């Protein structure tokens, strides 16, 4: 700690390597936190294995237009993973960081809190992508579920679904008073959303009223768009628009309401 004379220096932003280190640290913390890896990645895979083990789930169903129950459930499990990571893990960490003053401390360093937010989103997005790929690979390899026949449409649907859910997650992080509160709110939102995504009753088998409600939730269109792309069709524009609307509205509201302290 010598007191070297600090000469006039170039712009004082943190170097790129620091940002990479920040992302790596956030990833490490994400794994240590355990909630994301267990519930966001492990649990959907476990459900996939359980469903895949049910013999009748692998038989084509007339009700699903010849698709197997397992094929209907793969997009639902993908939605499960996206929602768990974006609604539970993300808000809990960010609101906790604000509550504990982690963001405030970063404000006093050249790194600044915006980059921490970016690092968190990057980690969340990367883990989500990994989880989606893992679900597709396990479904294909272990249970013979065909990969999406319209890959581009599938990717777009998955990206929009993740964007919509992360925006809602950020909104929760912006408005919750503490990490604990954020996690509670996220979990309360998770179950109805998953219901309308068809976790308990596939959307196609819902009564008309519930199906209409499902179309207006973020995960209903997500599951249906993923389903269509899996079968080889482009997602319906309305499905994509609803997800985009959630992403924009909640994203802007979160940006407006988010406080560093």
């Amino acid at each position, binding site marked *: 700690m010598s*007191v070297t004379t*600090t000469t006039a220096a170039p712009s004082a932003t943190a170097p790129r390597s620091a940002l990479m280190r920040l992302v790596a640290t956030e990833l490490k*913390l994400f794994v240590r936190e355990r909630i994301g890896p267990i519930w966001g990645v492990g649990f959907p895979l476990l459900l996939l294995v359980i469903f895949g083990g049910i013999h009748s789930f692998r038989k084509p169903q007339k009700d699903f237009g010849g698709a197997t129950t397992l094929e209907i459930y793969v997009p639902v499990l993908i939605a499960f993973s996206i929602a768990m990571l974006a609604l539970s893990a993300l808000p809990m960490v960010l609101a906790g960081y604000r509550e504990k003053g982690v963001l405030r*401390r970063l404000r006093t360093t*050249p*790194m600044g809190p915006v980059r921490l937010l970016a690092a968190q989103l990057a980690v969340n997005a990367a883990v989500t992508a990994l989880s989606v790929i893992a679900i597709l690979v396990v479904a294909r390899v272990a249970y013979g579920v065909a990969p999406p026949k319209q890959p581009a449409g599938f990717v777009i649907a998955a990206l929009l679904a993740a964007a919509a859910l992360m925006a809602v997650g950020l909104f929760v992080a912006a408005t919750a008073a503490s990490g604990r509160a954020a996690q509670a709110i996220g979990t309360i939102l998770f179950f109805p959303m998953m219901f309308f995504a068809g976790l308990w009753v596939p959307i196609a088998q819902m009564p008309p009223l519930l199906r209409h409600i499902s179309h207006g939730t973020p995960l209903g269109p997500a599951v249906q768009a993923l389903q269509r792309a899996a079968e080889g069709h482009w997602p319906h524009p309305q499905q994509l628009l609803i997800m985009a609307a959630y992403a924009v509205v909640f994203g802007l509201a979160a940006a407006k309401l988010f406080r560093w302290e």
Partner: protein
Amino acid sequence: MPAVIEVHNLHKSYGDTVAVDDVSLTVQEGEIFGILGPNGAGKTTTVECVEGLRRPDRGEISVLGLDPQRDRAELTQQLGVQLQDGELPGRLKVGEALTLYSSFYRTPADPRALMEMLGLADKSSTRCGKLSGGQRQRLSIALALIGNPRVAVLDELTTGLDPQARRDTWQLIEDVRARGVTILLVTHFMEEAERLCDRIALIDMGRTVVVDTPAGLTERVQTEQRIRFRPSAPFDDRLLTGLPEVTGVVHRGDVVVVTGNDNALNAVTSVLARNNIVARQLRVEQAGLEDAFVALTGRRPESERHASQSRPGRN
């Protein structure tokens, strides 16, 4: 010596609440400058404006020639900040935290050397959430110093620490200053300010009451000296009460307590000597910073016990 921090007529309100009314102070290079005042006096808001965390409503602030608002990016490189309540993620390890934070800076300190200096060397792989109050405070100091700053702001550093940890922390701060870092120290503990600070700004109700050295502050208050001793032989009180310097003589058992002005000690001892009386266990009590505080603000300073009670969980 050049000024490293200059604050002129700072004013900051939150809605109708005036947090800082009118604060001015100048910190010279290499000194430990204390901001002393009761809770809610505006100390923390003042340093938050210095750190650039808050935008002042009025007044000018210059830190190392930089504007804390306009030159944020450069300021964060040169100003180390220890926050009153800035935790780290509980699952982050001490060594990881210091390595990560060191990567933010242009010319960082060596995390290892810093851990060594702060007695955290064996805590490198301990999670931040598992540290004791004192260890957490030392990590907080380490984070304030990791960027090799020229100036460090330390806010309520020893609140919630036990007396031993507090003394250790004081020693640390003196070590840091010895390395040439200018320190702005926020505190409401008299003892801390008296022990550490070269100069003190006394802040009360959002205003700078006075800026002076601890000794200078004490001298400002005209107080009586209190002289206690055990006389070797009984004597007539009138020997002392007759002195113009003495205002009172009281017996407490076999101890005599004499009050008087600054010259009373001289007068009393020479009278006793002339009468062949030895003053045993002679003790002189003088006004301390605490008396100065009361005299200058008209209020009692926060007592330590009260302070730690009023801030549960802040450790």
